């Protein structure tokens, strides 16, 4: 087990780290990481934003533990040029945790996303938001959201959209003089980089 302690930091994850303990306000960058498993433990009042960008990387399983008054935003974009499995497990205990996960991906192959949220009995006012969009370009995708909510006053939202490039969108680009190859590139880039625009992370991955 290789542990990283974060306390008010902005850091790119080093290879080989599989546990992160978080205090204070932090930003963690994952760029093409060959992470297979990563466990994130949040202390009370900790906040963490994870920017995770992955082009054809390894399958990964992220597990998050929040024990009260903590906040995570997990922002992930991927391009699955080969089969890709992404698992995200959230464990919310205690009161007033927020977990926002936002995923944008492109599947040229087979992308499987398992998102599981457990909101444990005894806590109150927890929030879990999952927003997932996958564009299939010659590939397929499946998203399985599981929500186990046993706590009072939990707010849980899940949206998934899996789609091909729409014909009318393609025609629109063509009619502006952009050929289909360039059009697909523009659309794909909006999925891969759109969430990171105006962040330092954007320059790191572009």
């Amino acid at each position: 087990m290789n542990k990283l302690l974060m306390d008010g930091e902005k850091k790119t994850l080093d290879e080989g780290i599989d546990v992160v303990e978080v205090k204070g306000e932090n930003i963690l960058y994952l760029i093409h990481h060959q992470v297979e498993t990563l466990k994130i433990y949040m202390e009370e009042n900790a906040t963490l934003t994870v920017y995770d960008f992955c082009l054809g990387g390894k399958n990964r399983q992220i597990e998050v533990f929040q024990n009260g008054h903590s906040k995570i935003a997990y922002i992930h974009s991927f391009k699955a040029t080969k089969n890709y499995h992404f698992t995200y497990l959230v464990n919310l205990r205690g009161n007033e945790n927020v977990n926002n996960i936002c995923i944008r991906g492109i599947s040229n192959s087979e992308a499987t996303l398992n998102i599981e949220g457990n909101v444990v009995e005894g806590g109150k006012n927890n929030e879990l938001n999952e927003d997932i969009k996958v564009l299939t370009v010659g590939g397929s995708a499946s998203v399985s959201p599981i929500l186990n909510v046993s706590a009072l006053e939990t707010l849980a939202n899940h949206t998934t959209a899996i789609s091909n490039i729409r014909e009318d969108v393609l025609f629109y680009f063509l009619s502006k003089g952009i050929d289909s190859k360039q059009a697909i590139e523009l659309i794909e880039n909006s999925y891969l980089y759109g969430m990171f625009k105006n962040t330092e992370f954007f320059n790191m991955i572009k």
Partner: protein
Amino acid sequence: MLQIEHLTVSIEGKVILRDFSLSIKKGEIACLMGPNGIGKSTICKVLMGDPHYKVEAGSIFYKGEDLVSLDVVERSHKGIYLVSQNPISIEGVTNAEMLRAALESKTGEKSNFFEFNKKAKAICEKLDIPLEFIHRGVNEGMSGGEKKKNELLHLYLLEPDLILLDELDSGLDIDSLKTLSESLSQYKTKEKSILIITHHISILEYLHPDTVHILKNGRIINSGDYNLAKKIEADGFSAYEVCEEETYE
């Protein structure tokens, strides 16, 4: 500029235009009117090359060239531009990204970042739209009227020669209609032509048409000048049909 002759067009097996002919000269502003669902937008989409529409018969020549054999991108590069009745929005791709790609594709040269921004800024001022539109997603989160303005922002950057305005005036407030029409009338030189599709004559007060055509039963049933549009506005299409029969008697 444009010669459409004896055109028959269908969509999903349903014939919309039958023996439709229309020509638009270089420098001309033509206006096409007709009841709902008669095929006005169909003409625009056929000219732009929408693959859903099938040209069954007839010909279209644009600048002397057979248009039907050109693909959509070629038509755009050769100067045809459509402002659709309901422009779609594209989440995530910004105006600037799309337009730079479009300009690079048209000219074959890398677009100069500073020149692009300077030009886009000047156009925003002319159209009275916020500068931040340039970096907004294409029509993303824009109101109906804002989308139309945004489509004109694209138009002025791409500098087309044949402009198809499919109900530009729908969704525009009075001041915006005036601003946009005036900007178009400044843009229109002797080298450029415009086809206006509208249900109302107010746009024609700013963009004075040389010719006005009425579409019915798949083809043009009458042509005239601005006065014809005024007559339609006053009497409607059904009243107009009576007049047509009277003239035949």
